[in-house]
């Protein structure tokens, strides 16, 4: 059962972790979150809604790491854009992690702010504030050319 649950969600989790902290640490973040579930519950089957719970945990794990080592960049490995504008790509990387999470969940995943809130562990109004702040920064970069 646990294998099936994990298999269903692992792709989304590793992609989300990569967006939040970068490819170098994404695997470790996902491992830490899953390991913590096992430590506390012994199984993934007890989770009512695994996807929101695990994605929320990933965001909090990344925030915790950035607080523990504020001087270290979240993206410690240089990564390159493929098709996007380099300045926009860099601007997305420079967003605070909560704003990047909100924009990823709503823009790329297509969630409503209510859905994103349940995946981030905050209120919908907070998600909308993150979106507003993040969009404002990215709009400045996009409009620069």
């Amino acid at each position, binding site marked *: 059962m*646990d*294998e099936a649950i*994990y*298999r*269903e*969600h*692992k*792709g*989304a*989790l*590793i*992609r989300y*972790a*990569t*967006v939040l902290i*970068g*490819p170098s640490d*994404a*695997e470790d973040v*996902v*491992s830490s979150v*899953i*390991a913590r579930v*096992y430590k506390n519950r012994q199984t993934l089957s007890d989770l009512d809604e695994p*996807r929101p719970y695990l994605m929320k945990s990933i965001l909090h794990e990344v925030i915790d790491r950035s607080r523990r080592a504020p001087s270290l960049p979240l993206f410690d*490995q*240089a*990564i*390159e*854009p*493929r*098709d*996007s*504008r380099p300045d*926009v*790509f860099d*601007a*997305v*990387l420079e967003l605070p992690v909560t704003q990047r999470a909100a*924009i*990823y969940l709503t*823009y*790329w*995943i*297509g*969630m409503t702010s209510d859905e994103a809130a349940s995946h981030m562990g905050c209120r919908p109004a907070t998600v909308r504030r993150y979106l507003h702040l993040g*969009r404002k920064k*990215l*709009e400045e970069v*996009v409009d620069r050319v």
Partner: protein
Amino acid sequence: VSDDLTHEINLALADLEWHAPPAPALRDIRAGGPVRLTAEPSRHWTAILFAAAAATVLVVGVATLVARNVGSSPTVVDEASTTSTTAPLEDPLAQLMGTWTVTSVTVRGTTTTIDAAAFIEEGRTPPQVTVFDDHIRGFSGCNDFAAGGPIGVAGGVLTIGGYRTITAVGCPEADVIAVEGAIWAVLGGEVQLEVSQETMVWSASDIEISFTRVDARSLAILPSWPMSVGRLDCGSDAAVTVDVPGEGSDAATVLRQVPGVVSIEGEGVPGTEDGFVWGLDESGTVIAGTAAGGVQPPVFHLSACAPSLGIRPGADLTGAVGTWVNRLGLGQTSASVWSGRFVELCTAQNDSQLRDLAVDVVNEHLSGATPPTPDDTMATLQVLRAAICKSST
């Protein structure tokens, strides 16, 4: 929010997501961490090249084995033995997993036929979808799209629920517009599904989309790996990618150490990550390539064909990590991932465990490359297992 802003943000997010590594295996997490077979690669160039050579012997040997078998059969395992020893698939979605090229779309009675071969001849990716266990991703011939959350098959119906998203590049070609419109219309909903080993048809109200399964081996093109050495084509031989320390060196110097390279060409901005260089042999064929600039930490991702590395059969396979196998479709450059997979491969107790590994390989196939089917991967893994697992039968 303007369309331009949304488009640019989505492109950046797609690029960022594209760098995702394979997810760790649950059994590794529960055991306390990923399995590591070998130490970090040596920082000495010759040692790395030796490791690459050893790895390539393995790859060439396997490629030869596969090539021998491919002549008479589409896979290296005969159908009877596969059927008798492989556990039945629990999830009907599993038979859809892999990449499918669009062959035609019919919208309100008007059919548009897609000639995938023509796209490939022009160096373009044909319209296609790749089915994963939790989402679908694809390319319309112009735009990238994705949908999921979750997907599943029941009673002949494919459900692609939850979300759908697409980039917004303007596309002038009528056939591409037809494909894009038809696919976009069914993503996020349900379609009637007809599927066989080689073909798949999605039907929904007045839309019908037909696909044919992509044979990873038949493509024989180097997928767009992160450093985009797109000119490197190793034909029927294997390509190997190794990390080469770049401190105190430059890309041209690294390439000149590959036997057979007599000239260097490049493009982009030398000394930066925006540039690419490749080495040519006397006939002008590209036999190796790498990014022109270093990355942090300074490392060159050198890709080269087996013959250009002077590979001879019978070398020791010790330290064989970090292979990137061209023909076999196991697109994965990470040495640590391969180390873990070698352990899993050689300790698998039965075909069911081997199939789990095959599904992982397909799921964790590097984005941007064409994943093989689980069946093809299973066959490849069995050949690999026979080649490298000494104690296995």
